[in-house]
């Protein structure tokens, strides 16, 4: 079976500025996939390249096994895209924008989106008689959701979809996505909110400075073998190679440790500590570890 999304060595430079470098990623059909990274890491660049808004500097990208450069229009009919900034024609009503989006697709599909659009507006509590210019960011996001999902696409590409939505709407939004996913649609979303990725996605990839760091199941991403160690009564962390992310507050010190447990215990035993706790780091911490510059190198540009 062809992958829903497959990029190989996908590279995009804006002139000399880095967009993404050598990005190879696969998303299986039917997956619920999270694409994580800090601001400016290249998430939107990847997504916009997949959608044909940007042309890649190098590498290839396929959606449902078809090259995005040669089958763009055909593929766009199967995709529902929600941009991170929901911009529409200011002077038009919500209803008109949703209809415009459906009509622009109608040419390709010849089926009505109206019943589904009405259902989505109802669930998201979207007032369709308002003008776009009068809407808050959250409400514009809802318009975006309807435009992205009303035609029941095979692949939903969502760029930071929940920013601007209130918690109740976020929950409703994820419920809708999970229903679509159960019906067979592939969901690919980018986010920097780790908890929502952990809660909803099955697979995730982390991108930093334009390069893919890791792509795996959420479970495996959580099992890095690292421990969060908390000790009291020490001024210096034990001198071990794999100690990192040292934080002190008062007489308490915590650090991440990913070496052998025997060495850690031996080192701790020789120190004048008063208390110790060793625990699994939470996923957030693991992602933060990927985010921070002292993480395993996605090799640097400077010498």
């Amino acid at each position, binding site marked *: 079976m062809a992958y829903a999304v497959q990029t190989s060595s996908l590279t995009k430079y804006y002139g000399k500025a880095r967009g993404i470098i050598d990005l190879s990623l696969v998303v299986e059909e039917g997956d619920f996939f999270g694409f994580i990274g800090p601001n400016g890491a290249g998430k939107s660049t990847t997504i916009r390249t997949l959608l044909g*808004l940007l*042309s890649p500097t190098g590498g290839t990208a396929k959606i449902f096994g078809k090259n995005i450069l040669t089958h763009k*229009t055909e*593929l766009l009919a199967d995709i529902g895209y929600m*941009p991170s900034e929901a911009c*529409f024609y200011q002077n038009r009503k919500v209803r008109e924008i949703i209809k*415009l989006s459906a*009509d*622009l*697709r109608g040419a390709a599909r010849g089926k009505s989106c109206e019943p589904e659009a009405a259902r989505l507006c109802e669930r998201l509590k979207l007032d369709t008689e308002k003008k776009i210019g009068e809407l808050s960011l959250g409400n514009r996001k809802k318009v975006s959701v309807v435009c992205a999902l009303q035609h029941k696409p095979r692949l939903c590409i969502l760029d930071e979809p929940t920013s601007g939505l209130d918690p109740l709407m976020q929950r409703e939004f994820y419920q809708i996505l999970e229903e679509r996913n159960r019906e067979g649609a592939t969901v690919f979303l980018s986010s920097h909110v780790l908890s929502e990725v952990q809660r909803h996605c099955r697979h995730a990839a982390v991108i930093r400075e334009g390069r893919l760091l890791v792509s795996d199941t959420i479970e495996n991403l959580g099992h890095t073998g690292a421990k969060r160690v908390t000790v009291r009564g020490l001024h210096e962390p034990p001198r071990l190679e794999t100690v990192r992310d040292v934080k002190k507050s008062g007489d308490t010190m915590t650090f991440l440790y990913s070496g052998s447990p025997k060495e850690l215990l031996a080192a701790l035993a020789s120190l004048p500590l008063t208390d110790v706790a060793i625990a699994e780091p939470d996923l957030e911490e693991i992602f933060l570890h990927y985010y921070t510059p002292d993480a395993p190198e996605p090799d640097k540009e400077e010498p």
Partner: protein
Amino acid sequence: MTLLKHELRQGRNALCIWTLVIASMTALCVLIYPEIKSQMSAVSGMFSNMGGFSAAFGMDKLNFGEFLGFFGVECGNILGLGGAFFAALLGIQSLAKEEKDGTAEFLLTHPVSRSKILLQKLSALFLQIVILNAAVIGMTLLSVAAIGERPDPGTLSLLFLAYFLLQLETAAVCFGVSAFIRNGAAVIGLGMAALFYFLNIVANLTQKAGAFKYITPFGYAESADIIFDRSINGRYLAAGTVFALLGVAAAFFWYRKKDVR
């Protein structure tokens, strides 16, 4: 067709205002002609003898005492310059505005190829210019009938045709530029229209700058020449056609591959 309808809807207000202003100003000028005509026989000679100034506006060749002479200068300014500004704004904003307002991302992620988007946007430009000109011509003919003048229909048609072509060329050239820019579209568009206008005036003032007539669409839309020769200068028009086609070709060449952020 969806996008064409959408474009026309988006441009509706601007089209109404420009049409109303240009049509009513043209009609107003026609309606005051009888008043001016009686005074004009005295000053007509003066108008055509102000040397460079007369030449700049083609008044050395025109007779203000005749309706077409008067209409040529007045109409040349209102429909010529007004129409050029309108066409320039339409053309230059067509693609640039979508990127500036962030709506390009919405538009281009629907299953419509960029070529089709360009074609429908071009059709919308063309239709809007046709509508404006039809309204202006209609209003002019009504007001001409109202004051009882009977200008030569062939020459009058040529004048209108020339202004129409001038607008088409301006829109097409600006459309080409529009594919390359994101910000400052309106300023660039109005600047281009003004530049075209002044290039023609400079060309009228001195023979040395005669080549400018090939560059500016005002070259072939020069009322004085059209009334005097009873034809549109073919060489200037041919040059204009080439520029218009280059504008459209540049838009297609660039926009089909453009990175839209």
